[in-house]
């Protein structure tokens, strides 16, 4: 069975149907593209064929290019991967241009055959680009369907002509948000944006497309840029109207990407340089920029972490081999913000929820938190009243433990106190079935210790959510010493149901995410104490691609929590604790009542409405002594290594078992420099020898916390990387 099939109907319309066998969504492979060209050639050569409709045999149209293809081409091209990628891209242009010109005369633009796209459902990437190369795009009015060009989200940009075509269709100004944000749009919105031409009822899709093909004239199928006197909508770059668009676009993209996303710059450059030349030359320029992005290690890192590995983890890459453990009824203990958030996402996923708290009002408040989120969704027209009722209907707010009977999963989210947790664990186990899995949402207490309160420690596990639960993608699943496979499987299946990304780690203080985040925050605070200009610290972090600088992050997570964690950690670690320098600043702020955003005073100052107004000048007055400021790079290295070395140590110690989880978890958990693909990916990009060199410099200047871990030194010695453990791969 081929990915594409060809059939000519009674009216002479050649229908090319995309239906990749064995896959739920169509992705384009190299071999399949060859087939597409063959079919186009066949249709154009056959006098009996009046025109072509390209459609899908699935409910969705296409998910894009098989991104592994790009990696394969690089490998195949031996010592000239750029040439291989460029040739591949140009070949794609050739095929789509052939379809777009459809056999019409080069000078008169007459005699071509109409080509329509009948888009059955969700359509992304190359699927959209193929559609853009047709003469008219019809999309089914499918409520779940979305169409767009999301390549930017995985570190590349639409390199199949989508950039050049769409910017020439609607102008640079209108095209930029679609291309730069990678927005996926519902059919009506896509039509308004100019991406598609008509939205039709699903049942009429093929008929409407065919009817158009049969009635289209020569004029209907010539693209605007192939017509004489065509002008770029909105103004070409040196036209007064276009000028400000481009100047503004560069500034906005520069500011937004902080200079660390090569794809955004490449995309803008392709649009600009392409706007100055004829269409086919513009495609070549687009191809050169596309190649350039693919050759940048950042894009392969992003594709690997944000596309390939994220999907693999969501589908249960490390799931033990046990039967389906999907959750039908979850009991949530504690209706605070975490518990309420977990209740909401569970109910949204169709799981029945028992939300239990000590007081009924607390339980009710938890349920209304879910209601609040649904109301906001209704305001934004994303949630219907029926949907809201359905979701809320699944949440049963109660104080009665007996209501927990029948739960196959318990998520404990009560106060962070071992005594209280133990009490609650025992109480619950009196009520639930023997097979029930008990999970704790603790962020600081060892799972194995908490498991001691359980009758069935092999069914006891940690499921650690991040706040706010409805927005944060990452969930840490933590195995206690005795945790068994079924508990892991149920946790993974649960996380999959609620559409989040799981990583599985072993029990250790702070697990994985906080283990990396806390040193990041502390390093920033240390630098404040050393007299570094706070703006430099924060901007250095942002220019590494972190969403928040360490000082702002501290304000968001609250300084009193930081103080609590510092005290508890010091008590537990004793002499080994080495963070007193940074703690001094924290305690100083705490003593003044500066607890962060919640008290409208922290590292930052806030106005009465709670809006951040800037770094609190008191910090500078207290700590800046007028000495030399460090180089930007040094500040960045410190902030980076503070996290990355913890990630490596977590791997060394066996807390983290899979570097893929380390990378994906870092990006989704705390926005770790997405452009790098994650901490291990970053180390591979700069290379272990360079990383060790940086560690040595930092260790000498700032202390043993920066000592290069043995694992890293080993990799440096062997000349390999985390993702390239064999020397031959590393050399490639």
């Amino acid at each position: 069975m081929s990915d594409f099939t060809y059939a000519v109907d009674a009216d002479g319309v050649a229908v090319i149907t995309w239906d990749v066998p064995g896959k739920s969504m169509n992705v384009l492979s190299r071999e399949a593209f060859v087939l597409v060209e063959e079919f186009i050639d066949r249709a154009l050569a056959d006098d009996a064929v009046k025109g072509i409709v390209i459609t899908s045999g699935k409910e969705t149209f296409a998910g894009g290019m098989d991104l592994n293809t790009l990696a394969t081409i690089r490998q195949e091209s031996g010592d000239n991967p750029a040439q291989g990628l460029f040739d591949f891209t140009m070949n794609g242009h050739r095929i789509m241009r052939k379809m777009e010109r459809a056999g019409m005369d080069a000078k008169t633009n007459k005699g071509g055959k109409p080509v329509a796209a009948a888009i059955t459902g969700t359509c992304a990437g190359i699927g959209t680009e193929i559609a853009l190369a047709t003469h008219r795009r019809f999309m089914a009015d499918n409520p779940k369907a979305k169409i767009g060009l999301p390549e930017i989200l995985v570190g590349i940009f639409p390199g199949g002509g989508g950039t050049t075509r769409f910017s020439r269709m609607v102008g640079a100004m209108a095209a930029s948000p679609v291309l730069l944000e990678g927005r996926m749009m519902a059919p009506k919105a896509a039509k308004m944006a100019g991406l598609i031409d008509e939205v039709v009822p699903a049942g009429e899709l093929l008929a409407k497309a065919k009817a158009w093909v049969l009635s289209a004239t020569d004029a209907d199928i010539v693209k605007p840029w192939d017509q004489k006197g065509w002008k770029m909508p909105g103004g070409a770059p040196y036209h007064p109207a276009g000028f400000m668009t481009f100047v503004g676009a560069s500034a906005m993209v520069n500011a937004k990407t902080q200079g660390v996303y090569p794809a955004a710059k490449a995309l803008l450059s392709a649009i600009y340089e392409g706007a100055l030349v004829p269409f086919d030359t513009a495609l070549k320029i687009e191809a050169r920029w596309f190649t350039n992005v693919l050759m940048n290690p950042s894009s392969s890192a992003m594709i690997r972490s944000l596309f390939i590995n994220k999907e693999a983890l969501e589908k249960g890459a490390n799931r033990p081999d046990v039967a389906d453990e999907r959750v039908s009824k979850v009991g949530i203990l504690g209706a605070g913000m975490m518990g309420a958030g977990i209740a909401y996402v569970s109910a949204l996923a169709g799981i029945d929820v028992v939300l239990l708290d000590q007081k009924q009002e607390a339980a009710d408040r938890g349920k209304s938190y879910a209601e609040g989120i649904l109301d906001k969704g209704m305001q934004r027209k994303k949630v219907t009243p029926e949907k809201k009722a359905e979701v809320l209907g699944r949440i049963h707010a109660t104080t009665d433990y007996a209501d927990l009977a029948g739960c196959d999963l318990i998520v404990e989210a009560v106060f962070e106190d071992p005594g209280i947790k133990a009490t609650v664990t025992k109480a619950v186990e009196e009520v639930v079935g023997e097979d029930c899995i008990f999970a704790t949402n603790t962020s600081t207490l060892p799972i194995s210790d908490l498991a001691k309160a359980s009758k069935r420690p092999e069914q006891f596990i940690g499921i650690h959510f991040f706040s706010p639960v409805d927005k944060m993608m990452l969930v840490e699943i933590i195995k206690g010493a005795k945790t068994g496979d079924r508990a892991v499987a149920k946790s993974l299946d649960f996380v999959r149901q609620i559409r989040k990304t799981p990583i599985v780690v072993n029990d250790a203080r702070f697990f994985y995410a906080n283990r990396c985040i806390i040193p990041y925050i502390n390093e920033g605070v240390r630098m404040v104490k050393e007299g570094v200009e706070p703006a430099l610290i924060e901007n250095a972090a942002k220019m590494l691609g972190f969403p928040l600088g360490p000082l702002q992050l501290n304000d968001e997570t609250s300084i009193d929590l930081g103080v609590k964690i510092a005290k508890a950690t010091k008590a537990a670690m004793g002499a080994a604790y080495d963070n007193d320098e940074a703690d001094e600043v924290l305690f100083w702020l705490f003593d003044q009542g500066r607890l962060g955003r919640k008290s409208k005073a922290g590292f930052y100052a806030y106005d009465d409405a709670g809006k951040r107004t800037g770094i609190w000048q008191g910090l500078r007055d207290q700590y800046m002594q007028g000495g030399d400021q460090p180089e930007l790079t040094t500040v960045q290295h410190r902030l980076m290594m503070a996290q990355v070395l913890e990630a490596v140590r977590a791997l060394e110690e066996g807390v983290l078992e899979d570097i893929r989880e380390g990378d994906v978890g870092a990006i989704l958990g705390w926005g770790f420099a997405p452009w790098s693909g994650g901490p291990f990916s970053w180390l591979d990009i700069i290379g272990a020898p360079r990383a060790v060199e940086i560690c040595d410099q930092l260790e000498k200047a700032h202390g043993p916390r920066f000592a290069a871990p043995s694992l890293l030194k080993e990799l440096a010695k062997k000349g390999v990387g985390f993702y390239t453990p064999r020397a031959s791969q590393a050399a490639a």
Partner: protein
Amino acid sequence: MADAYIYDAVRSPRGKGRKDGALHEVTSARLSADILNAVKDRNNLSGHAVEDVIWGNVTQVGEQGGCLARTAVLASDLDESIPGLAINRFCASGMEAVNLAANQVKGGAGQAYIAGGVEMMGRVAMGSDGAAIAVDPSIAMNTYFVPQGISADIIGTEYGFTRDQADALAVESQNRAKAAWDDKRFEKSIVTIRDRNGLSILDHDEYMRPGTDMQTLGALNASFQQMGEVMPGFDKVAMMKYPHLERINHIHHAGNSSGIVDGAAAVLIGSKEFGEINGLKPRARIRATAKIGTDPTIMLTGPVPVTHKILKDHGMAIGDIDLFEVNEAFAAVVLRFMQAFDVDPAVVNVNGGSIAMGHPLGATGAMIIGTLLDELERSDKEVGLATLCIASGMGAATIIERV
């Protein structure tokens, strides 16, 4: 190596660079020709009198395109044997013309030049010639491009100048310009621009707003705040280049930035021999010239490194300079210059500057050299330094010495 001397310096009055400006009806070529004729007439030049006309002009499109310098020569009474060279170093084009002329004389490439420039900002809008540095994404992003107003505000933020300080400098510029005009200090150099019937079109700098005070300036909104903080958000780009800055303090507005005007100026430069042959008395020696490239994001700090360079290259110290002309592109530019060299404001722009009188881009460089010379003579001082900041991060300077 020969010496190069200034024999004469003339300028047009500066007209408002708007449709209602007095010079708006005059073409760029016509105004240029009028100034060239003034030089010719005042100095009795005839035939192949000078080697070249080097003519600064920034926005070289439309009527200012096609080597305007040569067109101006042909439109004037100068002999057709004199070629023309149109040059663009943005705001310092007029100075560059003078420097280029002087250095060619010194190098033995011709005995005399007319160097100057023109800009009709009301007729040919700034920026209408395009600029890849701002428009080409790879270049704009890689160089952290921000428009010059933002750059001026970065200077203010980085070097600690307040809105009040900027406004005070502006008020002073207005006061000094008025005093200079009242005292007829520009009389020697101003060329009244007349129509073909001899009727006066403009005889004074009409952009000035005497009586401007801190209150009037205080009422103006910071011009670059919106584009910096909101759309498209240039401040964030600035902070990528200068991450130690938490925010940009926007202090500049139309009242403390240079005015958009129309104008032209020319300087007659020649060797000693040229003067002797033509019976002309040299007024000053062009002692030194310099140009330099600097950080393009903060963009307008050029006067400081170029002054360091010109002094060092010629074995001089800041104390050797009696008078300064530092183009008032934006108040912070001048404040920074004075701060860097610890010079007395009383010897900087003593007859007012571009804030009060306007900055006709291609001409200003030549205008301030002329103004500097007139004031050196009037106040019987010896050595003057003129310098300008330049878009895309450059600086230019000229040192003249009375003879």
